[in-house]
């Protein structure tokens, strides 16, 4: 049952930041509320103030500017991301991950920024943002800063965000032509469910691999070492096999009610192998 809290919906960024400056530690920012309200209802989060970001005009921006890249504001819903032509064309892994998150109804409320700020190890949208080397834009009254998403997560449900700070949006550089990417997810049921493992894989036009995973470590992770190994080899089916084998060495999954660590480890390897094989065979291509 809900505890008591004040709800505010600032109309401007300054208003929001001033509010956070005064009440930051006792506040929670709210976008779709699909993570937050579940916690509040179970009394696992008991904020005194709920600050709704959806009234701030800047947060509604979803824009692709050729030559610059993609900007996804903090109020942009997961369905807007999944349905965006620019995302589907240039960032297929992101569109696929967005389409795999929860149900259509839920995606109408859930936001991409909420997904990463919640910092669940299983966040579906983190792996694609990791492989596209997205940058998180944060602001507070003291100013703004930009942090690569790979440095954004610090632990289970923990990020570099300070209490008085908010994320205004996320930007993704424009992938050069010839870029391929995809997202694979294994869950308990075929219907909507949190992932047991999620894998985003990208093969750039210069044949450089980027791999990232969710639900296999305390935070979503980018597999830098594995990428290096792969990038040193010629593209071949054997490479996919090797990627799958080696991926298992770089992850630290746990056992929970959704899956055993043993199965997570196993299926992580399978998905990495599949993703790499499919990229090599030309799937997930963006042709400019």
């Amino acid at each position, binding site marked *: 049952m809900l505890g008591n809290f004040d709800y505010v919906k600032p109309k401007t960024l300054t208003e929001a930041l001033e509010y956070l400056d005064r009440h930051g530690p006792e506040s929670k920012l709210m976008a779709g509320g699909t993570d937050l309200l579940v916690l509040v209802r179970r009394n696992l989060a008991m904020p005194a103030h709920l600050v709704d970001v959806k009234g701030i005009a800047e947060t509604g921006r979803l824009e692709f500017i050729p030559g610059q890249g993609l900007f996804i504001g903090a109020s942009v819903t997961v369905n807007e991301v999944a349905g965006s032509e620019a995302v589907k064309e240039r960032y297929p892994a992101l569109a696929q991950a967005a389409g795999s998150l929860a149900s259509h109804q839920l995606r109408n409320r859930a936001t991409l920024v909420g997904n990463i700020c919640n910092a669940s190890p299983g966040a579906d949208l983190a792996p694609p943002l990791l492989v596209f080397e997205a940058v998180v834009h944060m602001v507070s009254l003291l100013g703004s800063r930009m942090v690569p998403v790979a440095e954004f997560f610090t632990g289970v449900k923990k990020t570099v965000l300070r209490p008085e700070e908010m994320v205004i949006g996320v930007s993704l550089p424009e992938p050069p032509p010839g870029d391929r990417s995809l997202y694979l997810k294994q869950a308990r*049921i*075929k*219907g909507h469910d949190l992932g047991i493992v999620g894998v985003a894989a990208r093969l750039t036009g210069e044949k450089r691999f980027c791999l990232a995973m969710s639900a296999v470590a305390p935070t979503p992770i980018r597999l830098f070492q594995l990428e290096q190994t792969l990038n040193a080899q010629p593209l071949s089916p054997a490479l996919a096999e090797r990627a799958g084998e080696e991926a298992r060495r770089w992850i630290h999954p746990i056992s929970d009610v959704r899956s055993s660590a043993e199965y997570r480890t*196993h299926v992580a390897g399978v998905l990495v192998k599949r993703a790499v094989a499919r990229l090599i065979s030309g799937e997930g291509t963006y042709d400019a």
Partner: protein
Amino acid sequence: MNFKVIGTEAPRPDGREKVTGAAVFVADLRMPGMLHARVLRSGQAHARLRRVDVSRAQALDGVKAVVTGARFQRPFGICITDQFPLARDKVRFAGEPVAAVIAVSEQVADEALKLIEVEYDPLPVVLDPREAIRPGAPLLHEDLGSYARVAGINPCPGTNIFHHFKIRRGELEETFHRADHVVDREYEFPSVHHVQLEPHGAIARLSPGGDLTVWSSSQAPFVVRHTVSRLLGLPASKVRVVVPYVGGGFGGKSDVTIEPLAACLATAVPGRAVRLVLAREEMFDGTVIGRGLYARYRTAVTREGRIIGEEILLTLNGGGYGDYAVNIVGGAAASATGPYEIPNLKIDAYGLYTNTPPTGACRGYGHPEVHWACERQREIIAREMGIDPVEFRLRNILGPGKSNALGQIMEEDHGRVDLCIRKVVEDLAGPRYFAGRGHGPGGRPAVRRGKGIAAFMKAPVMPTNAQSGAIIRLNEDGGATVSVGAVEMGQGTYTALGQIAAEALRLPVEMVRVVPFVDTEVSPYEWQTVASHTTWAVGNAILMAAADVLDQLKVAAGAAFGVSPEELEAGEGKIFLREAPVVSLPYSRLALGCTRSDGSAVNRPVIGRGTFVPSGLTYPDPETGQGNPAADWTFGCQGAEVEVDLRTGEITVLKLVTAIDAGRIINPLLARGQVLGAAAQALGSTLFEKLIYSEAGIMRNRSLTDYKIPGPEDMPLQTRVIFVETPEKTGPYGARGLGEHGTVGVPPAIGNALANALGADFYALPITAADVIRALKGKGGGLRAQTF
């Protein structure tokens, strides 16, 4: 017979209301001055209650009463009176109500719950019925021997066994001696939850005049009335139970769940209605759960493939209280052989107290559990003996003249399980059904396909004298209003019953309305809406009530025409002279009393009455289990084709076929819906569902984030329902029960298909992708999997 309404796809009268959200459920009801209750639930699975201090909660603004077990000293229980509305002395499962707050709002009540202090002395916890049965296991009910109980229940005081049911036929030892082959296996069907769409809700009010009303989401309003009247010492006539639409029951709202508590709470604030509606999480550990059976099967077979004997041990997890699990014990034993004739049998079924939430009825009531075991066992025997599994089943199949485990001799009208098997096999791909393991399409090596079948049977598990009633009032327009005591919980019962009434009254179906709620004060008595017996039993009561109506109409028309009633016929809403049909009177003229030209009344208003009780049912013999407790049997067969991804282990059910001999089908559309819905539910228990507990007995997946049920994407790509319609001689227009049956054969059909696809036997449900991978890596072991 030429039917006008039976066998048609009459639309649901409640359809529009439900799809538009206008239909009213208990949680929608608001009473003047209504208060709200919330429950403090035990965080311990087994403990003595040392102290419950509610003083701080009581002092909170807006709190009207805080109630603990100290206030209510009378126990209740349908079969064994082993529980209290609020824990006294001891808690026996995590989730058991320890105290309740009644306040002006749920929020205030919730705040107050946090102020209640409880001290426990923890006791050792036992969660597995196989451990609970062992000597020296932690004892849950020290006073089991002194509990009142109904006839036929056989508890063993000093142990956790609340019921031991036996079946003994023939000579077992000698049979195993002369067997050519013996197969001995163990199976597990874990505890699951029903996950009804509508949460359990009850509103109770004690009037200043001292009578009590309970509005409830119950499948069993008359059981609630009985229980509450005994608990509070009120005459049954002073307890009124009202049930509007129910949003899914599946057995989990049968007998009583939260109603005794709601009624007791109402006595703490006389004159005020108290509303108790559970949160989703509370439905998991605050009501009843389902299934939870371990089975061991030892089967003796001859070289010719005849099953000559079987020894079966069933260990059912009953949870903290016996509840309605008591009768699952006997029901499971009675069907444990599956639809086969086995001359020599020794079946022992035990119901065990453990520290999980209590087990209650759950769609299928013991039958899916035992069929998971027996139909896997049949498949394994056939394989080990090199006999085609279809042929093996048919060699041993039950049929007319043969006797089942209870000693009942099957008759022609019991239906054709052999035909159901043949139809499923034919549909699954003709005689090559058993060709063995197959690769995926195009010979994809990383994918395997397999097919499997499972035959089944089910009887309603019910008291020998389960009563039903119907009242038909004829209205001034010639239409009819039908009252029954059965509950509409989504299954479409009012549609089917309306069709039966329309056919019997010779009225168009639109002219018949079945009253869309139950109110024990005005509705005729009904045992409860369970056991797939409503169409059959209430349908019979309706036939009698309709016959009563027609008799009254004929007497009235006879008086009007000056002829004897025997010369009259009913048809198309009229009573007419058989010899000269133009001489007729419409029902509308007769319904409320027809008058002559001088104004004098010819007849009294027409109200028909019908009551039904099954005839000839008897208690099984306590030593041998032999007797006649099962009123009718519905037979069927289910088949599945599965595809397995050998890399991820993911299982896809490509096709699910059900052939069922449910007698005459009253409404094919609804009947198919019931069979498919049941199959989907069972698919969930086969592939994903299981309640998980910590070692201390805390349920770890008591939410829909952590407990997944199948969604539309999980449904088989292809589903088929085939009706074989051997009319049931005891049923209305030849109908038999079918609501639960679609659950019974699905788990073994899929299990057998997986065995055929993978060369691995799975013995425990659910079978997950992880289990497949372990099996493929040869890491199965135990009940999880073994390769062959």
